[in-house]
């Protein structure tokens, strides 16, 4: 084998090992019996919801940080939020209004506030209320 092809194989083997280690990382994190939480549990994916509200949720960028109905970023699931919070509290949290704003990093609060006056803001709120 020439030196050049040796370097190629070495790089390939190294990259493969890195990918395998990344898979190992994901596997270790998802070992049973740790119960899978939030969106990963995803049993509610089949529940029929108002699609206008869901679309508003994605359009406003909520799904970048949150999941609902098994879709979106599973790190911060919102399933059940409609049962836990009343409409006003939900509104304040969703759009970083009033005291709720202090809970978020400034950049996040700003993004949330920007969505408050969207035409479909009410549809978004209605959707969140349905997440019970």
């Amino acid at each position, binding site marked *: 084998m*020439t*030196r*050049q092809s*040796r*370097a*190629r194989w*070495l*790089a*390939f083997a*190294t*990259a493969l*090992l*890195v*990918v395998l*280690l*990344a*898979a190992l*990382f*994901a*596997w*270790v*994190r*998802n*070992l049973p019996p*740790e*119960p*899978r*939480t*939030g*969106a*990963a549990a995803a049993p509610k994916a089949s529940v029929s919801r108002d699609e206008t509200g869901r679309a508003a949720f*994605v*359009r406003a*960028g909520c*799904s*970048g940080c949150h*999941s609902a109905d098994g*879709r*979106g*970023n*599973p*790190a*911060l699931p919102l399933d059940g939020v409609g049962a836990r919070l009343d409409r006003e509290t939900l509104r304040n949290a969703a759009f970083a209004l009033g005291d709720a704003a202090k809970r978020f990093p400034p*950049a996040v609060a700003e*993004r949330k506030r920007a969505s408050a006056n969207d035409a479909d803001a009410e549809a978004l709120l209605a959707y969140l209320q349905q997440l019970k």
Partner: protein
Amino acid sequence: MTSPAPRTHRTALEALLWLAVYLLAVTVPLFALLPGSAPGLGFTWDFAMALGYAGLAMLGVQFALTARFRRATAPFGIDIVYYFHRYLAVFALAVIAGHYAMLRAMHPDVLGSADPSSAPGHMTAGRVALVLFALVVGIALLRKRIDLEYDRWRFVHALLATAAFGLALWHLHGAGRFLDAAWKQWLWGVYGAFWVALIFYVRVLRPAHATAHPWTVTEVRPERGQVWTLALEPRSGTPLRFAPGQFAWLTLRASPFAMREHPFSIASSAERGQRIEVSIKALGDFTSTIRDIKPGETAWIDAPYGTFSIDDAPEAAGYAFVAGGIGIGPVMSMLRTLADRGDRRPLVLFYGNRVWDRVAFREELDELRTRLNLHIVHALLEPAADWTGERGFVTEDVLMRHLPIERHRFHCFLCGPTPMTRSVERALGALGIPAAHVHSEIFDWV
């Protein structure tokens, strides 16, 4: 130096050690995120995230690979490390693309709008970083085909890579949900800062060191075959300590900060470090300007580098050298050094060229024969009708005719165009010379 067998083993062990260091550098920051973190969020999600972290770490190490750390490159040879850098970049890009593709396929809602006016800054940063990385890799692979000048490419390469890496760190900072504890943020902050510091070291501190240690061009001498020899002397008077066959990064008519340095083998004797010579063939944009350099001009060098040296195999019973064209440069250094040291071991030089008139150093090689136990075999591709030496390439037959019977105890040094190196490596193997005794330097690795 040490005895032969342990030395080979030690090199292999060192190579393995550095590979382990590589894997640790890429994956430890990832696995450090595990303790105390929230439960898993599903295999595909966590795998996609892990690919993102690992890909970024791989790209960080890319900076270290070309930072010319002597200890880390020595067991492999710096040319191999540069090739490793090149191939690994393609795989690292694939890992990062995998991170994106998996999210696009399995969790499309997370990506949201690609419109930079409505998407969060860190998501746009991630997208732009991915595009920039693809550009960096694409341009590097196509550089020769699109005829991009080396100096310009190097500048663009460093600039784009640094920008992409910075954007990727921003993306990680904004989107990195695993960074849920202060110590994890701190760890990745330090990790990112380390790579930024490395870039600073390579692009600022090292050139600053070179600037403080200028050399002077004391002679510009034409050789046969469009080759120009530059003699350089350190202004400080401190001789350069190097092993014969090693090379230097040379900067001429530009600041060391301008990234206009080029690698050249040192051709002079390692026993004469107070005046080094590099012999350069006028082939490219930079090399064609060497003839215009005037004695008295300032030069900067970053040296020595490389493991292509007889001093890496001091135990050999003799040495065989196979040089093609300007590949004679490092071989001249080794021969001149052996002559200065009064070494009487048997030496064979196979020297391939096109025509006799353009055989660089041929008179000096004849003279070296009187000071060394040296047998020279010239092989010409276009010999005159009355040529009695070897014709064509340096083939297995040619090698067999001239190598002594105890050739398996020789160490062989190959420097020339890649096809020559490749075929001679094979031929030497067929002649029973152990692979560990065959040393080669890839000719055009930048």
